[in-house]
């Protein structure tokens, strides 16, 4: 089932000369884990802003073409309606947190929906538990470290049970172990609850393993759109300056020298290890 569909989507910010999105068309199926990547300023963030209606309703500017999210044509539905099905987690968690305690921040969205107290309690606890911030419940968000704040932001979005989770470099401020934990959480939500995940990320080393769909953008256009291993192994991706996993690059270098072959291009260290082991045995 198609959950996001864009057709000939072109968007220009007010007073901008060039469009931020230039004739973009793609489809995302329900339950997919999509990585959206590409050089800085390529239009990734703008594309995500279209998904919950920030574009065009908040940023205004000129939108042409069609974008439909969960059956709703974005242009015809206000942000608060789209926000019910699309949860957005930003790069910088500070922009998203404002309540006096972590617990209140996580509960805020639910309070606005008028969810019964008992269900609210359960959902808030579940979200805090999943994001690993139970012990921070009483703390003030602005006193927390960047990494902890991002986990609070993710918990407050997760409490809303969105159909689609859009995350814009959500682990930038986390240490690698914390980042792995968050990607694990997102992946679990994707697998067990069938939440569609759209993740903007540069560090493909960290996230390639979770994805089943990768979209590469450059200068407002979609350059590649497909299966992760195929996209990551493409010459086009590398020439764009997208940081493909080191494992994949190492495989390419060895394949060029005819030292290693595989139909399945490795994207994780353990896959590469097994390839080397197999080749040495043969």
């Amino acid at each position, binding site marked *: 089932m198609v959950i996001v569909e864009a057709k000939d989507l072109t968007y220009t910010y007010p007073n901008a000369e060039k469009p931020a999105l230039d004739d973009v068309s793609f489809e995302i199926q329900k339950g997919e884990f999509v990585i959206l990547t590409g050089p800085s300023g390529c239009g990734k963030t703008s594309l995500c802003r279209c998904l919950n209606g920030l574009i065009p309703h908040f940023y205004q500017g000129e939108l042409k073409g069609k974008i439909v999210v969960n059956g709703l044509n974005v242009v015809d539905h206000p942000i608060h309606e789209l926000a019910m099905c699309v949860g957005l987690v930003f790069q910088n968690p*500070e922009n998203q947190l404002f309540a006096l305690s972590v617990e209140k921040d996580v509960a805020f969205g639910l309070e606005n929906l008028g969810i019964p107290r008992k269900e609210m309690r359960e959902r808030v606890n579940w979200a805090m538990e999943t994001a690993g911030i139970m012990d921070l419940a009483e703390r003030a968000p602005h006193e927390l470290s960047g990494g902890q704040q991002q986990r609070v932001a993710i918990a407050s979005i997760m409490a809303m049970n969105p159909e689609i989770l859009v995350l814009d470099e959500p682990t930038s*401020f986390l240490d690698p172990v914390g980042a792995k934990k968050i990607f694990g959480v997102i992946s679990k939500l994707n697998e067990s609850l069938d939440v569609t995940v759209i993740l903007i990320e540069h560090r493909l080393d960290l996230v390639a393993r979770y994805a089943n769909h990768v979209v590469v953008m450059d200068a407002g256009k979609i350059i590649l759109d497909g299966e992760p291993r195929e996209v990551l192994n493409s010459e086009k991706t590398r020439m764009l300056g997208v940081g493909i996993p080191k494992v994949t690059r190492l495989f390419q270098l060895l394949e060029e020298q005819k030292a290693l072959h595989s139909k399945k291009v490795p994207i994780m260290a353990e896959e590469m290890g097994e390839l080397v082991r197999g080749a040495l045995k043969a």
Partner: protein
Amino acid sequence: MIEIKDLWFTYPNGVEALRNISLEIRKGEFVAIMGQNGAGKTTLIKHFNGLLKPSKGAVLVDGVNTESVSVAKLARKVGFIFQNPDNQLFCETVEDEIAFALKNFGFKEAPLKRRVTWALNLLGLMEYRKASPFMLSGGERKRVALASVLAWDPQVVVMDEPTIGQDYSQKEKLRQFIIQLNTQGKTVVVVTHDVEFVSECNPRVILMSGGRIVADGIGKDVLTDVELLTQASVVLPQVTEIFMGIKDLEFPLDVIDLYEAKELLLKRLGGK
């Protein structure tokens, strides 16, 4: 350039953030400070320009005790680029932002203009010079913050998480850029979680955990010590992870560099 003796630091709320840190950073060195969130990395670097003063012990910058000079004076020597660029940007245009500190330091009109242009070019921001910093992407804002500090040409450049929000080619530019600063004799200190970036740059690595320094050495040694890294919540570089997973095949285990890995594997696998 920076000398730290028996430094302890406790925040007013009682949190003991630094415990008995002793450290010397020489002129022209490139140092990466790594460790998990809350390990004390940012607290430590805030002592380099006097933003924080020791609870116990002493910090000397270029031979001067930070207790005896103002932050404004130290800032001329030690330039800081914060983790979140929004905390240091406030002007209406990128150009004004870069000129701001220069004006405060009393630069005259002509050299000021030259330096602004130089910094804009250096970080590829020329086309944005009239833009509002707040209209730019996170990665671009980070570069504006970097440009505004480099413009006044400090001797020590301290960057807190400079690779956040930067794409691969910008990271590569940053890497070359740091090397360039190094060759000009500048001291560069980077606080980062980005183990891939560090393994590409190969600086001196200082690993922190629980307010202490738990390791200090070359990347090849520190970044391949599984036990230490686990203690400090740092993950292995991906290249190292490959070899750790096939330990039984008797490859060296201290490999962090992609091209070194390639040569090692080629030797064993053969090829054309």
